């Protein structure tokens, strides 16, 4: 969830930069929506000027009977020699008038009922919802037919009334649901707490946020109303002497136009209805995509990202050979390394812009290690997690880097170079992922046991059903879920139990690596403690490696062996967890650590960091942290610091920090960090600066 929300937000803010007030206008930029707008516009104009530009009297009889289209009669003539084009032009006015007026009445009704039911709640909601549902379930057309049949056939007024009575229920239902969800939103509660009146909340907070939905419902009702009017007219239930598209079809049917093969008689009217309906639907798609960002995501950036990915896939083949060759050389030296991330870059492709969410990240994960990745929002930590598992979706794309995975037998493979089939076999068998929200990550309609079982089934086709069932129970027992809960659905478990179930799913195939993306953030501390202890216990017992991602530095220090701190898409510090806690080197790490209140020991001064995490689309020049850094000096705005190796104690991971304070003599702007470690003076400099 974390990534999709962030992505959506990113996409949204990219879209609306500049004139946010008219941001919705951009929805019309899409060719499909634009086509719809043009179609609807043309019909509107025709509806207004139709009677004036009609070449003949639509009811005027002439001797030119049943003529196919000709220069005199563009759309041909009827059995009595009436001009069909003129009938169509007059009909446009009536049909559209009925459609629009009926939709106006129905929409007004649905807005009133929907808002009232949703906001007032209680008994009024029960009654209004029941009413709407009753009208929804009663089939509209037969009811309309009956109503229309009882009414005297004086004109369109009765028809408009009849259509609106049967057409309001759907909109009311949608708006009620919307109102209910808006009412629970914080800004409505905030408005109440400020002392706003109910009417003011409804008209200023709830209603403006529903305009798009109301518009969609209105356009849908227009289509429905025009179709219904045509059906009624076709059945002869309206005033058949008033020209509308439906009446044209009625006369065509009554006069057996089919048998005389006079296709021109009925084709234009039907085509007009279909065309207008299509136009309205296309406009509605635009509105839908505006309301539901996920639908928009499917369009925007997708093509660009797909093209880029196709290009990347073509470039993969040669690179793969190279990486295999290189890794075989270094095999002996790094035998306990299981995953090597080299210079990984992940981009978000927007409309005409590329945002680097992960920028040149290199990390090493050893067997049995917990590698903690800390960072705030926008640091790229979740994007990194998704990139490692190759789960990123357009508009995100990996633009550079390697993910070298070392198998038990010592061979190395680049995860980024795998084809789909290899990737499918690799996933879960070697590398599993646990998401932040188990509620969202477990399929709501499958039993817990099934969701563990299907991973096993996919990867171990040889296992019998009985063996698999036994393994599922074993896994549940392992993570501390009572085995009789195997048939439970996700919603039947508590938050902590769901997260345990997620972990059981992750362990199903005994993977070598588990990536955990904020696995405990949604949990309360007490439950978080239980889950974290379970993770550590299982890791010690089963020997897998963990990449643990969270914003909670205190938790990370407690449970990790190595810590990587990310800021604006880069790793800014990398060190043993204990050493990191004793002596954070990067000013950002220091500030972050100093922001956490402690529970034991004497109270220390909490400092915090001024400013806010940067916008990835507008990164400051040089070191991204420089505007917030208390130790920044001139060159910090000019040079992006690489990771400098640092001196000091280390069990395994020699500390590194991406800060110019640790640069040798402070003069070489692009010095390559060496393995030797920076001279000791650097460290003192920091202490003095502090």
């Amino acid at each position: 969830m974390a990534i999709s929300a962030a992505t959506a937000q990113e996409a949204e803010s990219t879209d609306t930069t500049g004139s946010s007030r008219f941001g919705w206008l951009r929805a019309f930029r899409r060719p499909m929506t634009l086509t719809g707008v043009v179609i609807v516009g043309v019909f509107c104009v025709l509806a207004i000027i139709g009677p004036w530009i009609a070449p003949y009297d639509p009811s005027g009889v002439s001797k030119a009977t049943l003529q196919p289209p000709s220069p005199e009669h563009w759309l041909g003539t009827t059995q009595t020699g009436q001009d069909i084009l003129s009938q169509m032009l007059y009909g446009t006015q009536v049909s559209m008038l009925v459609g629009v007026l009926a939709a106006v009445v129905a929409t007004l009704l649905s807005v009133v009922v929907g808002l009232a039911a949703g906001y007032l709640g209680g008994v009024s909601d029960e009654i209004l919802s029941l009413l709407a549902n009753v009208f929804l379930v009663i089939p509209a057309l037969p009811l309309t037919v009956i109503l229309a049949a009882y009414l005297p056939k004086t004109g369109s007024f009765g028809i408009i009334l009849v259509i609106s009575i049967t057409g309001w229920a759907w909109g009311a239902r949608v708006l009620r649901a919307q109102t209910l969800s808006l009412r629970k939103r914080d800004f409505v509660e905030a408005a109440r707490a400020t002392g706003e009146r109910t009417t003011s909340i409804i008209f200023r907070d709830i209603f403006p946020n529903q305009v798009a939905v109301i518009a969609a419902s209105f356009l849908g009702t227009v289509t429905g109303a025009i179709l219904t009017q045509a059906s009624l007219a076709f059945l002869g239930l309206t005033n058949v002497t008033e020209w509308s598209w439906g009446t044209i079809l009625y006369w065509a049917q009554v006069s057996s136009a089919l048998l005389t093969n006079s296709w021109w008689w009925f084709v234009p009217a039907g085509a007009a209805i279909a065309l207008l309906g299509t136009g309205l639907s296309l406009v509605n798609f635009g509105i839908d995509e505006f309301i539901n960002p996920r639908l928009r995501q499917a369009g925007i950036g997708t093509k660009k990202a797909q093209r880029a990915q196709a290009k990347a896939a073509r470039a993969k083949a040669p690179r793969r050979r190279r990486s295999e060759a290189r890794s075989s050389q270094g095999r002996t030296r790094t035998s306990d390394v299981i995953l090597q991330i080299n210079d990984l870059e992940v981009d978000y492709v927007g409309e005409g812009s590329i945002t680097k969410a992960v920028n040149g990240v290199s990390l090493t994960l050893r067997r049995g290690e917990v590698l903690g990745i800390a960072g705030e929002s926008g640091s790229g930590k979740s994007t990194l997690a998704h990139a490692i598992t190759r789960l990123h979706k357009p508009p995100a794309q990996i633009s550079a880097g390697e993910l070298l995975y070392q198998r038990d037998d010592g061979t190395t493979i680049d995860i980024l170079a795998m084809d789909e089939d290899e990737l499918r076999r690799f996933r879960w068998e070697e590398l599993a992922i646990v998401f932040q929200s188990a509620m969202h990550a477990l399929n709501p309609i499958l039993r817990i046991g099934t969701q563990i079982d299907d991973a096993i089934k996919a990867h171990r086709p040889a296992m019998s059903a009985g063996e698999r069932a036994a393994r599922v129970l074993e896994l549940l027992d392992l993570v501390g879920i009572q085995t009789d809960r195997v048939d439970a659905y996700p919603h039947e478990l508590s938050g902590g139990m769901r997260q345990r179930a997620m972990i059981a799913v992750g362990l199903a195939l005994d993977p070598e690596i588990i990536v955990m993306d904020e696995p405990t953030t949604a949990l309360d501390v007490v439950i978080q403690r239980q889950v974290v202890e379970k993770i550590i216990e299982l890791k010690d017992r089963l020997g897998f490696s963990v990449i643990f991602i969270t914003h909670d530095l205190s938790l990370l220090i407690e449970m990790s062996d190595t810590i990587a701190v990310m800021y604006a898409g880069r790793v800014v510090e990398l060190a043993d967890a204990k050493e990191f806690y004793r002596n954070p080197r990067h000013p950002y790490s220091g500030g972050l650590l100093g922001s956490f209140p402690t529970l034991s020991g004497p109270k220390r001064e909490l400092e915090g960091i001024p400013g806010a995490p940067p916008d990835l689309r507008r990164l400051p020049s040089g070191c991204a942290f420089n505007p917030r850094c208390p130790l920044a000096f001139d060159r910090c705005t000019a040079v992006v610091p690489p990771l400098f190796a640092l001196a000091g104690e280390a069990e395994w991971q020699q500390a590194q920090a991406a800060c110019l304070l640790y640069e040798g003599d402070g003069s070489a702007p692009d010095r390559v960090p060496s393995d030797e470690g920076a001279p000791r003076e650097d460290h003192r400099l920091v202490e003095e600066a502090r």
Partner: protein
Amino acid sequence: MTTTETGMVRNETAPGVAVLEARHVTKEFPVRGNPFGRGKGRVVHAVDDVSLVLYAGRITALVGESGSGKSTFARLLAALHPLTRGEILFKGEKVDARGGRRFREHVSRVQLILQDPFGSFNPVATIARTLMRAVRIHHRTASPARRKAIIDDLLAQVSLRPAAQFTQKYPHELSGGQLQRISIARALAADPAVFLADEPVSSLDVSIRLGVLNLLRKLTEERGVALLYVTHDIASARYFAEDTAVMYAGQLVEHGSSEQVTQNAAHPYTQLLISSAPDPSRADENRVPDIGQPPSLINPPSGCRFHPRCPFAMERCAEEAPPRFAVDDGQWARCWLYADDDEAAAGRAQNARLHGTGAIRRAGRPVPDGEL
């Protein structure tokens, strides 16, 4: 009453005076039944008999897990829901917020700040419009130009300068920290005597939390406002609030100065909460073993609501709800361990061993009902 530079009249109270007082506040939400009667009459005991006093110029933390009723309690104080039982007093006077006018009078004195800054602003309204609505309610007589000046002043008070840089923006164009400051400005528009801050920083990035908390502290001290800080993070309560009350399953289980509650917790639940919180500075590895999960609030456990999870539970814990025992100066816990008898003494000894605080605590003194 004093007047600020913009001429706003302030609800100022001398520090240390009780401003808002909750007495035996209870809230039960009915469980939605169906027409066939099953489930009818059942209620969620969201807040049960909670008494708490907020003092002028003082920050009181209300700590609890999700579902403990802490947010509901804050909303009860804001009069957003009617009480089931009990009463709320503002400066000694019973609050009656039924009806529009009396409700608005109450909210002009007691203002709520919500957790999610991105959610608490109408996405289609500019900051200026949102603030203007609040100003219009609480400064009915001010002229439009005056109201503009008030908005600029409010933004200046939450350190958002220049105001023009923020007023014409939409919520999505601002960061979480900025928005949370604007929520505070919106609350300030009423010039309240009490702030109820419901998890004001938990959805913000760690590095900017301190800034917002410091702003709240500054406003509390400068304006003599009483502040209720509702949070799940007991460590932040230690740093930010003078007093801390701990809530479990709708009830207060412990209350005292923040330092007492965090450094020498008396109630086994508080101990569990503290030992569960991630804290790399912790020296010892002794943890209170935890069994189980928060209880159902529809059928809460009999006696002490924590007893099914409590490693020190005695027989009476399941039978009778414990009274409050004063365990230290100004600190009380609702726990039978502090009764004055042999069984409780043995429990206290076991608690000292397991929890590793060293000395075995003495029995407490039952607190009479009226005392706070």
